[in-house]
């Protein structure tokens, strides 16, 4: 049974780390601020959920770690899942109100 939980944890952690790395790469390489919002807002929440679910299986594996850690993991997941889109939306709104215009095809990209 422990091996089964280990395999599940490995799968979820691998997927989550892949998403986190591709999101960081996207933030580093995208040409424009508004296109950088896209990897930042989406991959962040999904990678975080995947990694937390992978750690949740580790909680089930060791009974000494117990349910307290599982409850805290679920709380962290729910909180970040609620606040990450709000923060991204606030950043985009502040940039648009602040006068930053989206990158058009004819303009130079401001990298």
């Amino acid at each position: 049974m422990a091996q089964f939980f280990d395999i599940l944890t490995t799968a979820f952690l691998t997927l989550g780390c892949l998403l986190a790395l591709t999101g960081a790469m996207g933030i580093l390489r995208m040409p424009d601020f508004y296109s950088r919002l896209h990897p930042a807002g989406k991959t962040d929440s999904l990678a975080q959920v995947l990694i937390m679910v992978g750690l949740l299986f580790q909680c089930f594996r060791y009974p000494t770690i117990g349910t307290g850690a599982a409850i805290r993991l679920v709380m962290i997941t729910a909180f970040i899942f609620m606040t990450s889109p709000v923060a991204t939306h606030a950043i985009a709104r502040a940039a648009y109100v602040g006068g930053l215009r989206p990158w058009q095809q004819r303009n130079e990209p401001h990298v």
Partner: protein
Amino acid sequence: MIDWVLLGSGCAILVGIFMLLARAFVGPTPFDRILATNAMGTKTVIFVALLGFISKRPEFLDTALAYAIINFVSTIAILKFIEFKRIG
């Protein structure tokens, strides 16, 4: 075996944090820096939770929860300061 998986995930998250730090240094507008710092905060929460499971001490999860709350509040506060030129 599972310890190595957790350790490798921690290293991958650290690499992601350093890539975001490069964007926070380079970023031409202040909004780029705020965006990179916000994403860095989320990745730091994940890293602290992973650290607790690497060292088999899940008390680190309390730290991760507090860090998530501080990260969100600080992002909103900085944005409000930029948008309205005051915090109050």
